[in-house]
């Protein structure tokens, strides 16, 4: 059992009869430690649903979800919350920062939820903000940050409890190109540091930050390719992108 995240025969349906939508339809996936996986596919093919299931935000209709060696699809909401807290970091397209908390307060929140002392949490949050290049904005409210800065705060927040896996849903979907590059550089660095990543995107440039790309259509996987080291480095693509 080497996978940080493993799903087996996973299915999630909405509606019934003629209106039945197979958002996720019998999917198997195993993400190894330190692996960076990108999931791509057209809008409505079930990417977000799959990501939510992997993170235990939703219950599947069939199949199994394993995180860090524990099966979570049958456990109580409370157990899943604990598991999320310790093993999963989420990043969303809309950032979902808490508007009334400053950057550093946002970042330290999961650490406080995990029971760290406020001093420990603050130290860790400050260090992470430094890593994402926002130490000067630590005391700013989200309303005073640019989109790229907000997303970097959100990423720092997702990392504060050193999760086994970082799940990101369209992390660059709301960003312009310059901000996209800021965020992709960050992902690139995380991958280099051995952080396990699962990123949902339909942005080609994001795919460049991955070891492996999974294509999805109508709730099922249609391709699964390993991206060798010979793939153009993210940095190159990024530079090319920024010249467009």
């Amino acid at each position, binding site marked *: 059992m080497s996978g940080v995240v493993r799903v087996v025969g996973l299915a999630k349906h909405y509606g019934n009869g003629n209106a039945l939508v197979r958002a996720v339809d019998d999917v198997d996936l195993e993400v190894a430690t330190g692996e960076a996986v990108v999931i791509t596919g057209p809008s409505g093919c079930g990417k977000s649903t799959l990501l939510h299931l992997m993170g235990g935000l939703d219950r599947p209709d069939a199949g199994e979800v394993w995180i860090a060696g524990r099966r979570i699809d049958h456990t109580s909401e*409370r157990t899943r919350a604990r598991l999320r*807290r310790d093993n999963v970091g989420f990043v969303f397209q809309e950032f979902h920062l808490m508007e*009334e908390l400053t950057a550093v307060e946002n970042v330290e929140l999961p650490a406080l939820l995990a029971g760290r002392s406020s001093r420990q949490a603050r130290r860790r949050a400050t260090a992470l903000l430094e890593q994402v290049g926002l130490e000067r904005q630590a005391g700013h409210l989200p309303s005073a940050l640019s989109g790229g800065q907000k997303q970097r705060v959100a990423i720092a927040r997702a990392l504060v409890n050193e999760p086994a896996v970082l799940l990101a849903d369209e992390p660059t979907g709301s960003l312009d190109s310059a901000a996209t590059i800021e965020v992709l550089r960050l992902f690139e660095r995380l991958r280099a540091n051995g952080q396990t990543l699962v990123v949902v995107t339909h942005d080609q440039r994001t795919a460049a930050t991955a070891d492996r790309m999974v294509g999805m259509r109508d709730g099922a996987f249609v391709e699964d390719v390993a991206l060798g080291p010979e793939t153009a480095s993210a940095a190159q693509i990024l530079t090319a992108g920024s010249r467009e």
Partner: protein
Amino acid sequence: MTSIVLLYRLARRDLRRRPAEALLLLAALAVASTTLTIGLVLHGQTAVPYAETRQRTSGPDVVAALFPPPGRSVTGADRDRLAALAGRREVAARSPAFPTTWASIEAAGVNGVAEVQGRDANPSPVDRPAVVSGHWVDGDHGGVVVERAFARALGVDVGDHVTLDGQRLRVVGVAVSAALPPYPQLCTIGCILDRPGWPSAQPGLVWAPRHEVGSLSSGREPVVWFQYLRLHDPSTAPAFAARYGADGPPTGRTDLEPWQAIAARQAEQLSSERTVVVFGSTLLVVLALATLAVLVGGRMADEVSRVGTLKAAGATPAFVARLLLASYLAVGLVAAAVGLVAGRVLAPRLVARSAGLLGASGPTSVSVGDVLIVVGTILAVVVVASVIPAWRAARTSTVHALAGAGRTPHRSRLIVRASAGLPPPALFGLRFVARRPRRTLLTAMSIAVAVCGSVVALYAQASLRAERGPAGGPADPQVAQLHTVLLAVTLLLVVMTAVNLVFVATASAVDARRLLAVARTLGATPAESAASLGVAQVLPAIVGLVLGFVAGSAIFRALAAHTVTPPLAQLAGLALLAVCLVVALTAVPARIEALRPIAETLREA
């Protein structure tokens, strides 16, 4: 004209879209206007039953009571003086002088003291008690007639037996008279209560055949004489009493009580009920204000985007403000109408229970003034609660409104800093409080109002208990009546507050939905999420509790002549109950919200 039609159409759709809110609003305003109406009706009502009783029983204008000096009995000379008084030319009619004394009374385990008046079988020209059941005293067949309020207090009716100083007598009738103050205030005209344990007794009136009185009287309770007079001009009764009556301790002269004094005491009995109702209705009006403000405030967030659409379509801010007001005003008018009708129906029921009087359930009128006061108050509440947010909404910039931003949450540095070291639920809870200061304030206020009302009720009950006669004695109908009115008003307050709380808790939970969903992706458990919503409600509740206690005891001290502090256990119990109620009422919506699927919430966001 077109704009009025448009206004009407939009307002109607608005109410249809939110039936639960419209109903809550209607209930809050209707309850407030009902109690208000009852208070107003009781105000005009007090004189009516006494006047009717007086008329139907040939009530006296002056009650003359001849008391001997202490240790002596009434002499022939004393009685001559009473006869001379009754023969004055101001007097138009007079009853015979009736011998009266006091005796212990026992009926079905209830022990008390009775004032026993000797009467003749044939009706007296002045004071002919109206027999409401059974028949009048009859010397040949024996038996006694008990005054109705006293009969109720003793729990006796026609056919039962009472024991007067060991002598068993049948109750042959129950009657009502205008010649005495309301039970248990009989002794305000004068009593001789010399036996041990008697001074605290509250005698009631029993009419017996004349010969019974002689056998019941003793050296300690001698016979005194009552004579009822009608004057040529009833309005001169106080002057007549002042001129010929005796003041101070019994001197063998005659005490005179004008009918106006008796009427005032009868009215007093109602006035304490009226005070309770008026006080209760004031609190309910305040509560309705809070309910409305919560509703309006809670709605603003999604209302603004609608306002934005309207404004983008060219509506003026004034039109938007009118639209928001219109739907609430419509509800307010309906509520006022419901309250006026309900109050009109309920008020006589409160008065009808004054057993000492007749015709209490006679016509009760709601005057034009009452209608204006009720409608005016309700509409004022609506305007005050909605005009400020409506004005603010109308002034928001159109672009901002279209973005649907609503009010941006506040950030209170103080609260955020204070919460920094706390466990997550408290931390989130405090931050919810900081987000919506106005709602927090309103929660605190509703709870303060309810607790204030309950504290006043506890104080009042304690005072009533302290005034009550010895245990095992007859029940005091006024106390029982006040208990009922107090209980009803308190229950109304508590129920309205509870409904309010559920509404606020639900609004807060919905408001915090996205925030909680995000917190849960970060690893907050459902229990932690629910607890944080709970903290956001319980904190203002505690503030409201403290305020309510302080205000309640202060108000009672201000209203009441003498204050009896209720047992500490009761006050503590009230506090505990309030906290439990708040927690329970908040927990349900919080729990529901905390278990909502995260993925769904995030998708909606």
